[in-house]
């Protein structure tokens, strides 16, 4: 099993430094809590940064109404155990228009229920800074991100106009209409996240561990059926297969992987040996070329 390694200590200290810099410089921060493993690490680091005080900002969960039931249960338990403030926001306008991941292409669904919903929630709360768990190792456009990622009015990311960010000097002075996304996990990798979860004995959503689950296979992707809203194609029948998730999003849009990894040690071993990248299971990322960059420009975090 993993031990406390020197590079995890460095990463932890760097993240705590970032949390403190943001809390000291921004008027009204919020932590985007999306329940997954990265959010779990993010929240743990936020607690360390301000201990013994509670983190001086609320959590925000953008609920598309298509999250796995296990995720919602985990979210509610975490918030109540730690005594934190949670804001849950759903784009009710999108819901009323019947936007869902079956009738609409992933790009439309994601834009309305995630990107627009996030913009609504940030504007409604008057937040000038939002912590996110994005890591630079996830995807090519994320590899280009700053730690303090400035967004112009309308939450747009302009990759050509990123601020210089020298040494550990994080400049939180905002220009007119600007807000910022803060990424304390910028230098973490997927393997680091798991090693840290093991080291710190953190609880994560059980979907990350292999178990028999009802699965439908589509275009080579394993879709876990979480409730009776699943639309089966003619001839499709969910079968029980031993699967787990590397990354968690909305259930019909996040593919599982075949796995026997039922505990943390096995998950870490599998992660280090992985032959495909983590976000290969995120169907929304492959909708079109440069999909993530497009979404980020529109305000996806």
């Amino acid at each position, binding site marked *: 099993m993993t031990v406390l390694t020197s590079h995890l200590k460095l990463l932890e200290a760097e993240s705590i430094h970032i949390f403190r810099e943001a809390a000291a410089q921004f008027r009204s921060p919020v932590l985007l809590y999306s329940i997954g493993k990265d959010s779990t690490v993010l929240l743990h680091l936020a607690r360390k940064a301000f201990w013994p005080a509670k983190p001086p900002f609320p959590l925000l969960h953008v609920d598309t109404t298509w999250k796995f039931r296990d995720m919602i249960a985990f979210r509610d338990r975490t918030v109540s155990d730690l005594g934190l403030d949670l804001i849950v926001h759903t784009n009710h306008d999108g819901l009323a228009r019947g936007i869902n991941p079956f009738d609409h292409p992933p790009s439309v669904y994601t834009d309305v229920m995630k990107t627009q919903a996030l913009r609504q929630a940030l504007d409604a709360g008057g937040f000038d800074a939002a912590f996110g768990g994005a890591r630079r190792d996830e995807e090519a456009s994320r590899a280009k991100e700053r730690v303090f990622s400035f967004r112009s009015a309308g939450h747009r990311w302009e990759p050509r106009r990123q601020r210089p960010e020298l040494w550990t000097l994080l*400049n939180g002075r905002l220009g007119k209409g600007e807000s910022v996304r803060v990424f304390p996990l*910028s230098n973490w990798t997927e393997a680091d996240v798991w090693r840290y979860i093991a080291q710190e004995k953190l609880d994560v959503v059980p979907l990350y561990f292999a178990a028999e689950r009802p699965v439908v296979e589509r275009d080579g992707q394993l879709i876990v059926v979480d409730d009776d809203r699943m639309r089966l194609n003619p001839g499709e029948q969910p079968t029980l297969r031993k699967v787990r998730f590397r990354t968690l999003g909305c259930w019909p849009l996040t593919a599982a992987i075949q796995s026997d990894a039922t505990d943390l040690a096995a998950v870490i071993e599998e992660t280090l040996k992985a032959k495909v990248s983590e976000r290969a299971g995120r169907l929304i990322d492959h909708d079109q070329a440069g999909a993530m960059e497009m979404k980020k420009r529109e305000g996806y975090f």
Partner: protein
Amino acid sequence: MSMAALHEVVLDQVATPPALQSGGMVRLLTCGSVDDGKSTLIGRLLWDSAAVTEDQRDAILQASHSRAVNGEQIDFSLLLDGLQAEREQGITIDIAWRYFETPKRRFIIIDAPGHEQYTRNMATGASHADIAILLIDARHGVKRQTRRHAAICDLVGIKKVVLAVNKMDLIGWSEPAYRAIETEFARLAQGFGFTEITAIPVAALTGDNVARRSACMAWYDGPTLFDYLEAVEPRVEPADAPFRLPVQLVLRADGDFRGYAGTVASGTIRPGDRIVDARSGLGAVVRRIATMDGARAFATKGDAVALQLDTELDISRGAVLSEVSRRPINADVLEARLVWLAETPFDPELGYLLRTATDLTPVTSMSVQALVDFETLASTPAHACAVNDIADCRILLGRATSLDLFRDLPATGNFILVSAIDGATVAGGVITWAQSGAPAVGENVLVLDRALLARGLCADLGDSPADTAEFHRRAQEAAILLRSAGVPVLVEI
């Protein structure tokens, strides 16, 4: 060559997967002029060290096949150029961060753009690096942009440089040509503070001397790039460095907890040690080093902690806690070398703020004294500086702040300049000289404070957000007019 054949060629060279544990972390910059092959070199390094997953390999092979930039060869740079504009134009605009580990250590690769236009992004990357790989195209030798990048590496404090002389395949693997470049670089680097320069002849596209020893360059007996990176000692900290902790914020909690939170910038601290705030001169004894994981016996450079003291000091963010004997300078006048990063040139009439470790101090006046000439690397007298220039400046501050000389303590001797108007980071620099209590500065400064402005110029404004914004606008405009008339001004509202 077919897709299948490409697969065969490449998968042959894949090394073993990394081990479960990893030790230290090395931050590695790749820089050099445009088209010298930086992204290709790093792409090759990742590819050959198994840091590329199969879906990424497939995507790269697919894209290389359709684009065929390098004839029929794999375009390794696609691994790093992550923005649409970069892929379309075939250039690197912003730094790309990549992560990989070998059985020996964890690497962070910072790939910097070579275009002069994007020097500000290169400087960002360089400031985070322990080691720089400076690429040179063997056909063209040292260029103006090579010298600029070397100067920026030196400015931000990089001590170890790898001179990767690339595209050796295109000059017939010629040793004399390589030696000439090595010698030329050694000569120009004499003016810099590099402690170690390692030259390696490579061909990124073919992989020669990247992870695999080149059969074409038997005359070279040094390490391959990969061997060098696995063995190099990234940064050696002096054992007895003075203690510094710039306070980020003061944490308060139930049971009268008060902790001065920050990251140790230098040295080591233990419970029982005496500390002092250099700016106020207030002293105290460290009672406890608090973390969520329990009290610690000591904290050292890089540790993020909260110090509980035996007496409550009336200090806040911006203070630097230090040991008693070797204190920071309580400076209000300083000299610095900086790289100008903003598109708009330095303007002595505009308001700037000096951001040090955690403090933000208004600049009363600033003057450029010299610029680095990128042909000769000598300083030439000047009074202006613009984007991508390296300048020597003199800065007067509106009040004293705690800082060190960069050559003594980098983490408390560096700074950025921030525009007082839009908050942009306009320059990054290092402190070369500083002094406290400069005579006459304090007396001649006109302080534009809230009360003064509210009496007349802003008497018609109320408390609404629109009025507050207008209040700030008028204050800045008044400061600009006064500065242009030669009056040192400090806006404090």
